[in-house]
């Protein structure tokens, strides 16, 4: 059998994967199947946006984690034997993808950055290695060929009227013994760094949380969003992970990036590869960020940033 399958636990990414999956299904001359939790309206919407078939998950019990769908998804995929199975690289999706791949005894390309079909109809995929200092090209010799796809890699699929498709509701997943005993949403961060034209990024060169005000003031003068490195969001929790740039966080494409007390390890730099101008302030003249910057100031940020604020105000 054949087909392209997609799954995402969030709607924005379902739409993005519909675009990716439709492209692949068309070039293989096969059908596109979307797996999603929702009702018949959801299914019709996905069909209008490019799916040929929708497999609907029935709702979970309040304390059931979404990962309880894993055995069901693997069983369905084993039965239908699709060529390709794409899963959105959300935190949940990455775990579910790996587990489904293990159940199907197949390989999975994690956080695939490009996909092409070669002349034999096989997927050629690229992914980052060594923290982002290398790009590896892979293909998969087992079925289905699986990949997780980072968010925003594809435009969301639009509604096309008069598309037809089929809908099938799957059976309720068995409880796994894992229970969700509490859920908390996260604090909304103020701005969206993925769309920002100018970004000022705070690194561990800052001594204390209050010093972020200095970075914010500079950002204010530049009309910039404030972003951060992983230690600032994940270790110190001074900012939310929404503001974090890099391999395990967001990729950004501002016209101007200005790193303040950022060392420039590859896992961070890989997130600003596409920035127009990269600037850095760092007290260590050998900081790796200077190798990847266009303009750099060697100096103490506590002296430099106030001076920059003054100068940019002029």
């Amino acid at each position, binding site marked *: 059998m054949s087909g392209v399958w997609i799954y995402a636990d969030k709607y924005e990414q379902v739409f993005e994967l519909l675009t990716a999956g439709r492209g692949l299904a068309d070039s293989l001359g096969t059908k596109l199947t979307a797996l999603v939790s929702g009702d018949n309206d959801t299914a019709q919407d996905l069909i209008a946006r490019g799916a040929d078939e929708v497999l609907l998950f029935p709702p979970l019990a309040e304390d059931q984690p979404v990962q309880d769908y894993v055995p069901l998804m693997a069983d369905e995929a084993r039965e239908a034997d699709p060529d390709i199975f794409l899963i959105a690289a959300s935190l949940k999706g990455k775990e579910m993808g790996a587990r489904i791949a293990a159940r199907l005894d197949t390989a999975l390309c994690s956080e695939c950055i490009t996909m092409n079909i070669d002349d034999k109809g096989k997927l050629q995929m690229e992914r980052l290695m060594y923290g982002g200092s290398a790009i590896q090209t892979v*293909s998969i010799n087992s079925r289905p060929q699986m990949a997780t796809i980072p968010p925003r890699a594809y435009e969301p699929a639009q509604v096309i009227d008069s598309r037809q498709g089929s809908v099938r509701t799957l059976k309720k997943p068995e409880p796994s013994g894992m229970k969700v005993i509490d859920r908390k949403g996260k604090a909304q961060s103020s701005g969206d760094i993925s769309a920002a034209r100018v970004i000022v990024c705070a690194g561990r060169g800052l001594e204390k949380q209050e010093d972020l005000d200095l970075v914010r003031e500079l950002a204010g003068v530049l009309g910039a969003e404030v972003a951060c490195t992983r230690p600032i969001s994940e270790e110190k929790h001074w900012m939310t992970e929404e503001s974090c740039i890099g391999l395990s966080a967001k990729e950004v494409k501002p016209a101007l990036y200005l790193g303040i007390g950022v060392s420039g390890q590859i896992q961070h730099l890989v997130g600003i590869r596409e920035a127009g101008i990269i600037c850095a302030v760092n007290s260590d003249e050998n900081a790796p960020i200077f190798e990847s910057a266009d303009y750099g100031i060697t100096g103490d940020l506590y002296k430099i940033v106030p001076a920059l604020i003054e100068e940019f105000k002029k």
Partner: protein
Amino acid sequence: MPNIVCCFKWVVDEAYIKPSSSGKIDLEWAEYKLSDYDRNAIEEAVRLQEIYGGGVTAVTVASSDATKGIKDALSRGPEKAYFINDDQFENLEPSQTSAILAQVIADQIDYDVIICGEGSSDMYSQQVGPRLAEKLGIPCIAFVNQLSIEDKQIIAERKTDEGMEVISAPMPVLVTVLPDINNPRVPGLKDTLAASKKPVINIELEDLASEYKRLLIDKGLKAASIERNCTHFGAGPEDIKAFVEAIRKTGVIDRG
């Protein structure tokens, strides 16, 4: 009292990775290190043992060159290590690594909790942990930043894209941990000396029953360097002026 297993990987230190003139990756001069987040995995295993008792076993699949890695891992507190090694175990893919780990752990190690890093520093596939859980047929809780044990249940707080979830699961269970779960200790001289006296169980390819087929075909590796021509400025007032002027000239900021 829980038997805790932590899985670690001995990896190329990416700071040593430099593209050769042909754009290929040159690993000849590379140093190795304990994969960054596996330090958190080991630390968490030892931390749980300090609270709940039990034992900590560190496990790795590697080529036989990784003996330094075993010592490094043991200096961080586990009392013994399984060194599953063969010269063919150099560039394993996640399906192979997890199948090998699953076989040895299922056959030879008592376990209640298995701890992996969220992802390895070289591959960062974030697959080995969840795949290992499936192979062992146990629950998996990924991206955990807080862990405790209550009445034979694991209680784990994990990160999700929406915020966080607290999960309870029966043991045995596998968790993958985020870097903010703890602050890994820095081993001292005494720990390093103690590590050399700890038992290491050596397992080789011929001790394993199955074959581990490669499914992910490597079609090549190219450098992705982000080098730019940096114009350097000092910290004096003239430098600040010149720096700001240089940025203004590029036209990327609206003011000025």
